[in-house]
């Protein structure tokens, strides 16, 4: 059975109307019935809180609140309705330093412009099929910033000795982003 994309609620945040139109046309063609749009971070925050979308496509460069600031807020604000929400950063920035910045802000996936139907589908599929574990440290709360577990790694635990692992499902009652 294929995905029931019609059950998804997607929020598209971009100050550029044309990019919002293109992304909206693509996800609607996939069958997503509920698509919200916001032209800036402030309106996006309001819609995020009121409408609780499942996936957020987030532009990086916006006047006022940037995409990075929005991502940090979504992850760590006590007012966030869902600190685990899938955030797909859409940007023309593709240098490694930018990927690291997005990762450190709590972004789940990275979608490079120019976008295509295939690249958008690949990112949606990634957040559905390959969810990231979450990490809470004194300085960070968000998806695990390591892209993969290296099974062959035999060195010391690089996060230090104080790492605790919780079982799947135990985060259901997690409070809202206290890091």
């Amino acid at each position, binding site marked *: *059975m*294929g*995905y*029931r*994309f019609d*059950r*998804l609620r997607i929020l598209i945040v971009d*100050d*550029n109307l*044309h*990019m919002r*139109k*293109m992304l909206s*046309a*693509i996800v609607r*063609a*996939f*069958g997503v019935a509920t698509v919200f749009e916001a032209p800036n971070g402030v309106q996006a925050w309001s819609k995020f809180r009121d409408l609780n979308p*499942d*996936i957020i496509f987030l532009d990086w*460069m*916006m*006047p006022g609140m940037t995409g990075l600031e929005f991502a940090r807020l979504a992850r760590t604000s006590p007012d966030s309705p869902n600190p*685990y929400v*899938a955030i797909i950063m859409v*940007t*023309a920035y593709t240098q490694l330093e930018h990927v690291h910045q997005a990762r450190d802000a709590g972004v789940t996936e990275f979608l490079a*412009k*120019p*976008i*295509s*139907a295939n690249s*958008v*589908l690949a990112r949606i*599929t990634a*957040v*559905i*099929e390959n*969810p990231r*574990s*979450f*990490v*809470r*440290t*004194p*300085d960070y709360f968000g998806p695990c910033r390591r892209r993969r577990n290296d099974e062959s790694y035999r060195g010391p635990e690089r*996060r*230090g000795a*104080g*790492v*605790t*692992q*919780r*079982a*799947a*499902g*135990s*985060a*259901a009652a*997690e409070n809202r982003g206290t890091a």
Partner: protein
Amino acid sequence: MTKKQQQPIEVFMPPNVLKQKVGGTSASIDMSAVKRAEQALETLKTEFGDWIAADVQMLSASRDAFAAEASPERQGDLYRASHDLRGQARTFEFPLVERVATSLCRLLDAPGAAKAIALVDAHVGAIHVIVRDKIKDRNNPMASTLAKELETRVGEFLAQPARS
């Protein structure tokens, strides 16, 4: 050890609510959905000419505001207008606009860009010409030579030690 270092690091897997919601598997994705999305983009293509014209107009307005007052806010506005073109021009089938806008972003990212307003203008002018003449071939001899020249000039500007 600092107080921060003493705090435990917690790693956990939240429930996969998305998967529960959409069901299915990626192996069973209806590939006709991609075709439908590509068709939707094809339909939008009729609007791409107007869209890039609007983006170029925004770039010009931001350039004028920056030339009048070279504040960080106005430099940021100009950067965003250029960055939008960089991100979308290839979709709009203007790959050389993407190339020139990338060069302009590189220039505007540097301290002291206000001192290079002539070079900013050269980029904005080049983008205007490429769109006006509907140059969609990235190998167009005139436009690609111009793009290369602009990239070289930006490189020279960035190499100046005392530009800020």
